[in-house]
């Protein structure tokens, strides 16, 4: 296990690097400058079965971090940057320990406390919701400022939460859905911005999404209770038909799909 604060990093030997969560913009910028390929290990990247990681992580565990370990085991990486600060979670800290034991590459722990606001044009745009999430999650691999993709739309619905492991949960939402929660913090490149994370719009029906076993589930449940027109949904590895049906019914019966 290595730590970026104590080790001199020889970037020139790196061609492929994995990131977990959102390492600081400076760190991403250095990788960008050297044209090092960045893989977002939080996303689904490899076809291997998740069962392959069962010797290393419990089955009842965050699907995102299980995916991280699966990706790390099967990609040919030169190093991993894993954020373990207030912008990620304690579970990532423990996963960094496991990755350090499992892999023969440097694992750099970061603690992202960036405060420079990059803005949230994608979260408030009229793109379909899955495209918004794709743009935002792809955005973690670049330190560049955003080009405006489209003008903001008036919201008919809200999605609060982290990017889901299974994007099919996003299918029932209208294009006029605004994104809130940690995903908005991601786009703004301030993942530890708690005040931004807690924001929601009380005037629109909002789905508070919890990735099962994620620490942010507590905040999702709490805010859903505060919101006057909310649906709390907890989804694990795959989006079940009942979760999808609940969201679809909530949006239709709330008038968000009209």
């Amino acid at each position: 296990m290595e730590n970026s604060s104590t080790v001199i990093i020889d970037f020139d030997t790196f061609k492929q690097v994995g990131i977990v969560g959102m390492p600081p913009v400076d760190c991403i910028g250095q990788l960008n400058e050297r044209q090092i390929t960045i893989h977002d290990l939080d996303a689904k990247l490899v076809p291997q079965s998740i069962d392959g990681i069962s010797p290393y992580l419990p089955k009842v565990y965050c699907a995102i971090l299980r995916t991280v370990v699966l990706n790390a085991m099967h990609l040919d990486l030169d190093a991993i940057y894993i954020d373990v600060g207030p912008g990620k979670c304690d579970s990532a800290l423990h996963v960094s320990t496991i990755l350090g034991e499992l892999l023969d590459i440097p694992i750099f722990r970061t603690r992202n406390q960036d405060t420079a606001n990059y803005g949230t044009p994608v979260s408030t745009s009229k793109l379909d919701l899955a495209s918004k999430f794709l743009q935002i999650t792809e955005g973690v691999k670049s330190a560049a400022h955003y080009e405006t993709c489209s003008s903001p739309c008036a919201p008919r619905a809200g999605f609060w939460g982290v990017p889901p492991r299974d994007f099919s949960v996003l299918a029932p939402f209208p294009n006029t859905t605004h994104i809130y929660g940690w995903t908005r913090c991601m786009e703004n490149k301030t993942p530890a911005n708690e005040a931004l994370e807690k924001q929601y719009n009380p005037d629109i029906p909002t789905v508070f999404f919890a990735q099962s076993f994620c620490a942010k589930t507590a905040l999702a449940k709490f805010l859903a209770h505060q919101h006057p027109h909310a649906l709390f949904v907890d989804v694990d590895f795959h989006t079940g038909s009942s979760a999808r049906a609940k969201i679809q019914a909530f949006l239709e019966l709330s008038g968000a799909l009209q």
Partner: protein
Amino acid sequence: MILGDFGTSYCKFWDVSVPDSQPTVIATKDLPAGIEVTIATGHNGKRFSRQYINELIALARGGEALINEDTYVLLDCGSRDIKFVTIQNGDLKEMDWNTECGASMGFTIELLEKYYELDYTTMQAPERTFSVTCGVLGMSHIFDAVIAGTPVADAVASFIKGIAMNAYRFAGSPEKIYLSGGLCDNPVFINSFPCEVVPLGRFALLKGLEHYARKLEH
């Protein structure tokens, strides 16, 4: 125009193109091959229709048609799951669908009646309640009670009351519940709720589909 509610244990059909027609019920295991309806809902519905309405939406639309109030809780207890909608001043306030912890409760209640040769219409709601997590796990309480000398009918009634209490809490512990689903015909279940219960019968979801049938007609 035939509407279908394809449940886990029973399927309900209604030909709304025939004036004054009444819905019919057949056991899902006896469903004829090749059947197709105009609009479907229910656990099995997608296979039998080109237009599918999900069960929560059908339930909410059924409530709009059947309940002449603008604030109410409508709870549907089926074979496999329970779901509810809370409407306040005409708008959706809350809804949920429990497919896990509500697992198989309606199915288990029917199974127990047949296995123990009981007749729920002649039984009373009990004082005693079993703490029931779900249909399958709750059966252990029945077996333990019977071993301890409790009459089978009393043990099963306590199990049913436990399920009713679960459903009541799931729906937010309201003062009044409109109830739909096959358990509307079970007096032990209905009388086990600690609140006023208004049974709507087992065709509330079909009534909800009628909303979409009228749209098709226009």
